[in-house]
């Protein structure tokens, strides 16, 4: 019953994100403020439905929904939706709000394409509290990277448009986009380093006797970490301004998606679900 409930609420969340995106697009075209309120209200309802779906799935299977690729992607999208609320809405710009909803919707579609079967009975290797720390922190970090990815794309679009173009005028200020990317990457980077890499390494030591095994998922995670490390060094030390850090933010999130799928195509120690 709860599984049925979680599926219903998850589809409700997808529809909600879709309608919120539609409202945001109508707002961009028409400029009528009522659509801003509608988009915000529908988005809030969609996040609520998404939260209920995750809670119902937790109750159904007796553990948080972070044990296979489908569950991981739905949790990642949920964190991105939270990031949207706390960071993007504060920016008070309709364009970036619409764009991040589109990214969240894309993540939900990816989740919907993955096999959604769950299990109550986790294999012994996954029966550890490290699972909750490691995987939820990784999903949270990538949720924030997704928001940074969206704002970096907008930054590059803005930088690619000529002065005086109507679209350029409506896009957020570069400084605002730069700030959003930086803040999301900082939160994501700390979570990724502590949760995805370090908690994962400690768990690997407990389970396999080795902190690091050059497993494909570990190595692709290291690549993600390197990309964002370069981004942060460039950004903090002001070694480069403009497009390069934003290109790195985009490549970093795409690399995180490759990491997500790496166990599917490359196998290795992380081939659980």
């Amino acid at each position: 019953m709860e599984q049925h409930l979680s599926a219903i609420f998850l589809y409700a969340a997808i529809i909600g994100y879709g309608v919120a995106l539609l409202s945001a697009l109508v707002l961009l075209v028409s400029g009528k403020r009522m659509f801003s309120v509608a988009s915000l209200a529908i988005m809030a309802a969609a996040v609520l439905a998404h939260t209920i779906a995750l809670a119902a799935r937790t109750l159904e299977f007796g553990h948080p929904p972070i044990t296979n690729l489908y569950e991981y992607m739905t949790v990642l999208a949920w964190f991105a939706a939270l990031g949207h609320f706390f960071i993007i809405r504060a920016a008070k710009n309709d364009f970036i709000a619409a764009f991040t909803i589109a990214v969240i919707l894309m993540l939900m579609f990816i989740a919907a394409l993955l096999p959604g079967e769950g299990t109550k009975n986790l294999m012994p290797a996954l029966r550890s509290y490290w699972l909750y720390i490691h995987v939820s922190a990784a999903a949270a970090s990538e949720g924030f990277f997704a928001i940074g990815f969206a704002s970096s794309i907008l930054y590059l679009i803005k930088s690619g448009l000529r002065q005086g173009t109507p679209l350029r005028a409506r896009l957020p200020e570069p400084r605002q986009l730069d700030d959003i990317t930086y803040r999301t990457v900082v939160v994501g980077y700390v979570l990724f380093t502590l949760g995805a890499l370090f908690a994962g390494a400690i768990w690997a030591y407990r389970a396999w006797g080795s902190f690091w095994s050059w497993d494909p998922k570990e190595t692709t995670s290291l690549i993600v970490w390197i990309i964002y490390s370069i981004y942060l060094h460039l950004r903090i030390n002001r070694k480069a301004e403009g497009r390069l850090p934003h290109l790195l933010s985009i490549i970093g999130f795409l690399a995180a998606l490759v990491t997500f799928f790496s166990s599917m195509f490359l196998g290795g120690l992380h081939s659980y679900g």
Partner: protein
Amino acid sequence: MRRLMIFLSSIRLMLPLLGVLGLVALIGVIIPQDGDAAQYTRKYGSGFAAFLTANGWHHIFSSAWFLVPLALFCLNLLLCVGKRAGSLVRIVTGASRETPVKAFTWGAYGSLVLHAGLLFLVAGGIIQYYRGATQMVMLAEGEKQPAGDFPFSVALRHFTIDRNAEGATVNYRSGIDLIDRSDSLLRSGETRVNAPLSWKNFSLYQATYGYLPDAFKKADCSVIDSMGDTLFSGTLPFGKAVPMKGNNRLLLCDRFECDFVLDIQNRTIGSRSQNHNNPAFHFMIIQNDTAAASQWIFLNQTRRIPALADNIVSIEKYDPAFFSGIQIKKNAGTGFIWTGLASVSCGLLAIFLFPMRPRSQTSAPANPDSARPV
């Protein structure tokens, strides 16, 4: 010399090095590591396979492609940490005119600790690589084996599969004794998945398990004589003779094949696989310490066996005997790794909770029209 030192400790060197390490790691992901030449030839063709094996791309993380930029990166980090630590010492001792508040915020301390922590992590990894060692032992219950070059033997007291009420596997447990060369017990305990057993700088992990192909734990067995009297009915352990009713006869199962096959040419008996597809039990009836009769019996076979004095012997079910695969790791460098993990974690939190510069300075007035490379 001073300019060289400045360059070697600079971020201008560090960023390209990180990029190179990332690219090398990417090659390590794309090309399966530690394969043999034939595998690469099958996958990539002989030309590219020869190229990648000649260049060490099949062991890229222990090749110069990775180790040289890693060494340079460590040198860069070391010099960078040294430079920052030197500044800190000068400020603390008053040798610098900069005030501590202006020059060293918590974020700056964090940066120092984080970069030093990365050095600890690399050092721990190198020590583990050169000084650590791994051995694997496969043990049947009750068996003892030397643990390779390590100064002890490992004995498996029991192997258990824990199941929940639904019958799903919850964990695998091995009761283990570590015994030194003079047969003294060093450590007795249990290793489980996610919970290794430790002794000094050794850790023992529950790595694998399986059914033994040539032994079982116990079987439910019955023997009925030609008159219809039950001579034996109950549990028969493998390899142990049990008394039968009357005439001082003993029943013994002394051999087991999990996937019985008879080689007609050589007249030999064995298993065609490690799977328990066709289990067969070799029974003996012992009378006055000599084998009076013997016969192979298959599972659920109920028929009169002339070789076993016309008795009907049947095996209804049996419990397979397990072996447990224990991985033994000699830990080296773990202290460095723990220190590194703690340092980097504290450093990260310090940097981002206490930014190194005031907020107005960290928000770059990034103008997309004035993009410039590093």
